[in-house]
């Protein structure tokens, strides 16, 4: 073994990558790696670039040895991707077979992943003694990252088609949507954002505040697509700063309005926003509304849906707006949904819009589930209603008091 075989491997990999347009090339690439290293199997993973918190298996090769180590491979690869450190160790699978593995991360920033190579246990010493091979891994990591990056970027026309074929834009998470939900006891939270274009203009935020309270924000930049998203990013930055201060919801909206209105007037845009602070201890919600749809509350006691009171001008309407705050108290089992225009404006084939009535109707079919379950069901219902034809971003946050 030496430089020559290593170089051949690298050439082979580049050859495969730049010629083929099919995603199966990743299986072929890891097959080459297995052959070169005398391993049993190899897997290739990436952190899903579109959806944070998920990992995707790009390729796998097993040299005819049918011992299944998929589950083990998944666990170890996830850990490597999380730690971003090489992970070299021994393992025993579910059938008590013994293995030696090398799980090596690659990439940085937007594109990260790892490849995990499996050897029969008795080959461990051979491998550890070969300093060349270990150094070669770092080089291999660079090459694999280049290859994956090329595939995702330049073959993107295929990738996009695949995405479109899937059930609407449920899978594209806009960067304006929280990827991690705060873990707060006695509260169930579900959040979904269905994006009409690739870039979303709806803003959802869940902010963990001091003394256990939860800040919930839902915003809509009227005028979607890229300009809307840019405006929302700015709004979010200012908003988060203000939210962390001790200011009350109505003060925060007022301040936000002062900061953003000059810009918004220039862009001929408005932002509607709802901001509430929920206290799980006493289930009280203090909130302010800037031109946003009134949130809907489901009361378990009488099984009725009601609209939360409270109005206010959209942000960007006037230079100085003074907002009012309102209060609501939830009971155990009550549900609240805050949604953007896109949800009620979704239209079906006969051009009939879903409406707040549609939301109430669908919600009442699923109220007994937890917030996540209800979010799933509502999202499915929306996509089915418009038959995958979204004309505006549709987002919502569901809060269930437990």
């Amino acid at each position: 073994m030496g430089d020559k075989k290593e170089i051949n491997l690298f050439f082979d990999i580049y050859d495969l990558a730049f010629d083929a347009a099919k995603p199966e090339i990743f299986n072929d690439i890891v097959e080459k790696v297995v052959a070169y290293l005398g391993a049993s199997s190899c897997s290739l993973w990436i952190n899903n670039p579109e959806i944070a918190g998920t990992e995707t298996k790009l390729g796998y090769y097993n040299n005819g040895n049918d011992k299944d180590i998929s589950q083990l491979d998944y666990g170890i690869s996830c850990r490597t991707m999380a730690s971003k450190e090489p992970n070299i160790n021994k393992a025993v699978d579910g059938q008590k077979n013994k293995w030696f593995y090398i799980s090596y991360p690659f990439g940085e920033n937007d594109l990260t992943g790892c490849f995990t190579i499996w050897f029969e246990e008795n080959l461990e010493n051979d491998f550890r003694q070969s300093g060349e091979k270990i150094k070669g891994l770092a080089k291999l990591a660079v090459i694999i990252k280049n290859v994956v990056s090329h595939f995702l970027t330049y073959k993107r026309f295929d990738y996009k088609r695949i995405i479109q074929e899937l059930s609407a834009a449920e899978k594209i998470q806009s960067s304006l949507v929280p990827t991690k939900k705060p873990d707060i006891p006695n509260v169930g939270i579900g959040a979904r954002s269905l994006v009409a274009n690739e870039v979303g203009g709806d803003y959802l935020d869940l902010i963990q505040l001091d003394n256990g309270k939860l800040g919930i924000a839902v915003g809509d930049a009227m005028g979607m697509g890229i300009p809307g998203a840019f405006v929302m990013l700015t709004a979010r930055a200012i908003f988060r700063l203000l939210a962390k201060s001790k200011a009350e919801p109505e003060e925060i909206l007022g301040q936000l309005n002062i900061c953003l209105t000059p810009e918004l007037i220039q862009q001929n845009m408005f932002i509607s926003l709802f901001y509430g602070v929920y206290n799980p201890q006493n289930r009280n919600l203090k909130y302010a509304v800037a031109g946003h749809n009134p949130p809907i509350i489901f009361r378990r006691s009488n099984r009725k849906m009601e609209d939360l009171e409270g109005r206010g001008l959209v942000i960007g309407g006037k230079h100085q707006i003074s907002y009012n705050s309102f209060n609501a108290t939830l009971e155990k089992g009550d549900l609240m949904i805050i949604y953007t225009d896109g949800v009620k404006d979704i239209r079906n084939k006969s051009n009939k819009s879903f409406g707040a009535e549609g939301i109430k109707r669908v919600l009442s079919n699923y109220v007994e589930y937890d917030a996540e379950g209800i979010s799933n069901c509502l999202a499915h219902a929306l996509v089915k209603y418009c038959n995958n034809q979204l004309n505006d971003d549709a987002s919502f946050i569901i809060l269930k008091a437990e």
Partner: protein
Amino acid sequence: MRIISTGKIRPGMIVGKNIYSADGRILLKKDVIITEGYLAQLDRLDIPYIYVKDHIDEDIVIDDVIKEESRVEAVNITRRAIEKIHRGRDIDVPEVKTVINKIVDELLGNSNLVLNLIDIRAQGDYLYGHSVNVAVLSGIIGVALNYNQIMLRDLMLGALFHDIGKTKLNRKIVEGKNSADSSGTAENKKHCQYGFDILRANAGISLYSAHVAYQHHEYFNGNGYPRGLKGQEISEFARIVSVANTYDIFLSNVREEEETSILKAAEYLTANCGAIFDPEIVAVFLKRVAIYPIGTRVLLNTGEKGFVTKTHKNFPTQPVVCVDTNLFDVKFNQGYDVDLSNKKAYFIIGCEENI
């Protein structure tokens, strides 16, 4: 194995699970290859779905919440008991209690009691299979409410004979199905009173069980029958059986163009909370019903595909999915399990029929 509506079955498919008649005979045997002849027989027997398996999913085993032989025995014993009543004789209560106690033990011994299987039966023997399934479903709710063994037994006994009053009606009620809205003729409604009278006359049956027969058509809002009882006036056993009964009727009534009938049944129960059903009981029940039963092929929001391998009690919408196809549609020989209740960034956006 997976469930498939009879309309979609083709010769060559392999039967995944036995289907029994009420007297314990096997009408359709597991592992048999379906032929044209079998298709005709399925039609005659009026069976809406069956479980089939093929090389893709033959390793997926979906367990019933109780043992198959317990269920078969229970159906047989129920048939005998109801026939006895029909002939004017008394129920052999010890025989019934023995099989119910066995089932109670099996339910209590199941640490992850979640409903993944749909109980399939030939419509000709509808009442017996229906009675047993309502008893089992009620038992699941009872276990979730932390009932002890005696309470479970009395609950399930009541559930088993909730429709026994129908033996006194003038039609051949033992065949044929109920409609989801209770068959409302005045004559028909009397089966509640008849059932109560039959059961309370038997010294071996508790009055609580008898009240199930009496009250299982009462509505939570007071608009039910026969007495228009409301809310907590209705015995808890009866409120439980009302939910279980409706759920089972719903699933036996669905035709092939419907999608995921389980979800429709869940929607119906939820939408009618407060009106017909006790919301607390529906909430408890729905936590134990797998919306995506084991074996269902699903599409995830990441674009990956796989099938459900395990359902957690309390999180029926976030099961464990064995992912075997990546977002580029590349299928791997062996999948890996992703637990949706832990990895919150994943959720299911579609299942089998729509993929």
